[in-house]
């Protein structure tokens, strides 16, 4: 059963659509990464799913409950960590978690136990008596995660959970997210790409309010690269190599990677996707009588896919609708 079903979700701010006709499903136990540039509509989508804000049209069902009509029941089953973790800085950690436990209607008998369990699971036990304002950013992030985890919600929605942390803290928080995602459905938004490939089962790339791609990180890099790339190093004059390659079937572009050194010419070749031109290329080099020194594929990273998808959209829209609109959206 899909834990989260989103159908035709649209949200307008005035006349500007923050998200337009967004559809996706998230299954039980999945970690889905929401990827997109700033202002793409990630937070808007999350705010609708957490029942903070209603959608202009379309709907979303969480655990089979409608966000518009069963808001309170959904909110009981959801943990949410907003961007910038807004906590009550004047409270002590334990008092804050006690407030959240009460707000989440955890029965009085289980409250203390539940707070201790969650605090231990995110590593807060040492700072329970401290005032939140004086905690380090990493600890505040943990308090934010702890409040989301209170009540053991089956669904977690985390808006940029690692923003503003140092690399060590980022790794710690990521490991935490991984550790408690085993039996939960998690949606997290980010614009940090390694994060997605590291923790997410599936990626939804959103740009300017619409979903532009949705797949596993591995499949995305396989199918959404504009082209397959490889690097060729031969011992031959650069000009001749270029002449050969520009007329070679399947090659889209070829550009020198470095200047020729010792008569070695290195070229980066972009070829049409889905076709391996390496065997044909090797034969051609051999026929010319050049020495083939290197021929290796360059793997497309998720970053390339992301940049491709996002910039493509911008190019298209600026061509068709003029620059004015792009500025509004960004």
């Amino acid at each position, binding site marked *: 059963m899909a834990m989260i079903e989103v159908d035709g979700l649209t949200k307008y701010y005035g006349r500007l659509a923050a998200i337009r006709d967004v559809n996706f499903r998230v299954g039980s136990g999945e970690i889905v990464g929401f990827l997109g540039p700033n202002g793409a509509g990630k937070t808007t989508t999350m705010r609708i799913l957490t029942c903070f804000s*209603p959608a202009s049209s379309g709907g979303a069902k969480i655990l089979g409950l409608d966000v518009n009509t069963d808001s309170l029941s959904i909110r009981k089953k959801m943990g949410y960590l*907003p961007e910038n973790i807004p906590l009550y*800085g004047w409270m002590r950690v334990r008092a804050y978690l006690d407030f959240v436990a009460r707000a989440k209607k955890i029965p009085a008998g289980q409250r203390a136990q539940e707070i201790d369990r969650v605090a231990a699971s995110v590593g807060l036990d040492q700072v329970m008596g401290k005032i939140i304002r004086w905690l380090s950013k990493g600890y505040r992030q943990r308090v934010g995660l702890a409040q989301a985890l209170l009540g053991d919600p089956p669904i977690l929605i985390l808006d940029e959970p690692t923003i503003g942390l140092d690399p060590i803290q980022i790794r710690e928080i990521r490991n935490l997210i991984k550790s408690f995602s085993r039996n939960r459905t998690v949606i997290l938004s980010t614009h940090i790409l390694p994060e997605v490939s590291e923790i997410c089962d599936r990626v939804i790339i959103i740009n300017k309010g619409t979903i532009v791609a949705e797949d596993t990180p591995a499949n995305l890099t396989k199918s959404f690269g504009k082209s397959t790339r490889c690097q060729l190093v031969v011992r031959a004059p650069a000009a001749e190599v270029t002449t050969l390659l520009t007329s070679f079937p399947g090659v889209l572009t070829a550009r020198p990677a470095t200047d020729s050194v010792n008569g070695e010419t290195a070229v980066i070749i972009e070829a049409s996707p889905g076709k391996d031109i390496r065997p044909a290329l090797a034969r051609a080099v051999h026929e010319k009588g050049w020495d083939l020194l290197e021929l290796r594929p360059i793997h497309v990273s998720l970053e390339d896919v992301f940049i491709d998808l996002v910039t493509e959209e911008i190019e298209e829209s600026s061509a068709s609708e003029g620059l004015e609109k792009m500025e509004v959206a960004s």
Partner: protein
Amino acid sequence: MSGWYAVFRKETANFFVSPIAYAVIASFLLISGFFFWANVSLMSLISLQAANNPMISQRINLTDVVIRPLIQNMSIILLFLMPLLTMRLFSEEKKSGSIELLLTYPITDLGVLMGKFLSAGLVLVVMLAGTFSFPLLLLMLGEPDMGTLISGYLGLLLMGGAFMALGIFLSSLTENQIVAAAISFGAALLFWVMSWTSSFSGEKLGAILRQLSILEHLDTFHKGVLSLVDISFFVLFTAFFLFLTLRSLEAYRWRG
């Protein structure tokens, strides 16, 4: 309204952890105490002067010289201080963004609002309870009119509640606490003095302005009269602004 208690506890803790509650309560008690002392001193002075004149001494009583002016003065101090209690209730959460988290907990908007309203109400009750020493002193030394005392305090409580509702509503409109306080004070003062223009603003408009004026409706409480009309005015005034706050929260959700 479910879940209000969690919010009530948090807001009350905030009032008493931060110096806000202490500062407001202390100012209130200090100024009320000053007025009480001044009124009692005046009472003793004119009683002395009237001792030889039975005609005047019959007309001097505690209620007119001490209790009624004291309650009137306390209501004016409340007018100044209530905006300071309510200014942060929503604007602070809007500014820090914590309202986003608060509104995604399984608490209804009404629960959130009532938690905040009642916690400010608790501070008001503590504030008023702090002045009970004045009537107790009067009870020990003389025979004050209990009816006027009770209706006076009830009037202060109802009026304080009305100012709180107004202040909370205005706090829900802005992220800036100072703006919330300034507008709350301005609006409360306007409602206070509204009837002053009734004498020259025409018959119909004048009647409406008189009905909207807080001072007009407070008068019966000061006289020791419990009138259903005036009690209803404050209850409706409070309910109206709480209702507007709920709409303002809903609008905030739509924009969010």
